[in-house]
């Protein structure tokens, strides 16, 4: 089964207990679906419904359809400085 790799950071990684999650292809036809999948994981219910998402280090919209090789990252609100 093909999967899409999602990177999690900071509080989101804490919530799910992992900094990297493999999402089955069946649940990754759009970023919206990917987030729904993550929110269904144990601890994932505290993820926001519409987090900031980067694909290949560029911000991406919820309707984006992941393709193999994409680096998808779910980003908590930025807190540098």
């Amino acid at each position, binding site marked *: 089964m093909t999967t899409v790799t999602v990177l999690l950071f900071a509080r989101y990684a*804490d919530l799910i207990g992992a900094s990297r999650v493999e999402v089955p292809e069946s649940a990754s036809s759009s970023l919206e679906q990917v987030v729904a999948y993550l929110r269904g994981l144990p601890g994932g219910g505290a993820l926001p419904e519409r987090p900031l998402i*980067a694909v290949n280090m560029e911000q991406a919209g919820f309707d984006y359809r992941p393709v193999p090789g994409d680096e998808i990252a779910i*980003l*908590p609100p*930025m807190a540098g*400085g």
Partner: protein
Amino acid sequence: MNGLSGDPVDVDALVHAVSGPGRGAVVSFVGVVRNHHAGREVLELEYSAYGPMAERAIGVIVAEAEARWPAAVAVVHRLGRLAIGEVAVAVVAAGGHRGEAFEACRYVIEEVKQRVPIWKRERYADGREAWVDPTAPGGTQPARPEVSR
């Protein structure tokens, strides 16, 4: 020069990097770990980042500033554990005149805070920890004790 650093930030090195005989105005912003946040006493904190994207975002912000003002800009953001008083971020802008140096420096720190994927976990005097979240009421989100280090 620009980017992330696991070692203490050398502000003088940044100043040196942007200085030049035609740049008479050097404006620096240095963000230092404070001993309090949102009414709680902070003991230390830890910065983490989505490294490659953060480095790239910093590079884009510097390029924007250098395109908009006749100034040279250097930025370093620290990662890892920091004690009170340590430098978390430094931005140095050098230009021919002070207006452009002030404006470029301010622009870069504002954009870094908004656009660079860096996160901050604070440890407080009462033993609790939290993630700083500028969008949350109170400015933080509790951190799971089981993942505390």
